[in-house]
């Protein structure tokens, strides 16, 4: 009996247009149509209105009213709200069309955007260097080579199957991107031999660091004037 009385009270309140406090808290005004700019290209901007349909709000007085069917008065009010939102959407679309026309005129007047500055030749060389170095490092892993390292280097001779071996001390390293070179010195049969190798060359199959001699110079050219035993390796 009490539930029926409460339902009747809520119906009369809805008809009179006075919403209860908890119904006011739940009620939201329909949002205004927003203009979304979707840039298909630099020249043309297609502007479309995206109206959000306002969900039909029914003032609810009690949980028991949910279970029952909505009354005809509440339905009529909801239809009126929906009609008003449709009218607002149509007005928004008209405004959007006007705005699109104005923006197209402005874009025609504006000069085209400036082109990107050209890539310099030095930058291209740097990019290519990085690419070649990455490809070379995929094939073989290079150790950290420093002057003073005693290395064993295996290289492929042209028209030869077996790898030739060269062992010596690094007396200089010249960093030049993909053409980074090391100069290796060794005494062979009492004669000093210095060979400069490009370390990223595909002919060089393996570089192995045997040990490191403690040095305090970046270039060990003084070894030419030292005794042969400083450059002799078994």
């Amino acid at each position, binding site marked *: 009996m009490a539930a029926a009385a409460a339902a009747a009270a809520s119906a009369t309140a809805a008809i009179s247009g006075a919403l209860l406090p908890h119904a006011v808290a739940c009620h939201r005004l329909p949002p205004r149509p927003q203009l979304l700019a979707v840039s298909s290209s630099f020249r043309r901007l297609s502007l479309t209105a995206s109206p959000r349909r306002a969900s039909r709000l029914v003032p609810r007085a009690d949980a028991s009213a949910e279970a029952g069917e909505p009354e005809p008065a509440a339905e009529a009010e909801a239809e009126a709200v929906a009609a008003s939102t449709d009218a607002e959407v149509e007005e928004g679309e008209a405004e959007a069309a006007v705005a699109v026309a104005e923006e197209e005129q402005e874009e025609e007047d504006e000069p085209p955007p400036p082109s990107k500055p050209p890539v310099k030749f030095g930058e291209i060389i740097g990019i290519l260097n990085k690419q070649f170095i990455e490809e070379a490092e995929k094939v073989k892993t290079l150790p950290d080579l420093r002057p003073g390292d005693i290395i064993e280097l295996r*290289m492929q*001779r*042209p028209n030869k199957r077996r790898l030739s071996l*060269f062992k010596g001390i690094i007396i200089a390293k010249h960093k030049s991107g993909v*053409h980074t070179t090391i100069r290796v010195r060794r005494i*062979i*049969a*009492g*004669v*000093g*031999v*210095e*060979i*400069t*190798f*490009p370390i990223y*060359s595909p*002919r060089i199959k393996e570089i192995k660091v045997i040990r490191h001699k403690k040095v305090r110079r970046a270039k060990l050219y003084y070894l*030419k*004037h*030292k*005794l042969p035993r400083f450059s002799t390796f078994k």
Partner: protein
Amino acid sequence: MAAFLRSKCSSVGRTLMGGLGNNLFGAVNSSVETVSRPSHCDPIFQQIRTFIQMRTNLKVVDNSGAKRVMCIQSLRGKKGARLGDTIIGSVKEAQPRGKVKKGDVVYGVVVRAAMKRGRNDGSEIQFDDNAIVLVNNKGELIGTRVFGPVPHELRKKKHLKILALAEHIV
């Protein structure tokens, strides 16, 4: 005593001359003397790293009997000879009872050069001294042995006999 001082002075003078020029005046001294002298005066290490041209002194690294040859004509190019080229030289020092004697004009193939020589694979090779192997005017070897390392570029120059007799090929 005077003779002793005179010999000392002469050896010092020879060492200094050897250090100044691109030649090997002191190269044939004994090993004890070489070690006792300061290393920067050793003429083997005082090579000017350039072309082998007229008046360049070269070490002979075969058993033909010559010890030192002075270049008098380069048969390759305007500037001078490089690794693998043929030169004409005059024998400046020779062993007794050798196949050649002092003053002979001989042909020789440069088997080691102090100047850098690039290779096809991007590497470069250089030696600490200038050395030749004596050949006759047909290109045949006078000696029967070759000492020390030789580069494999001689194969391209058709000096296969030198490569066959060499101790090391680099």
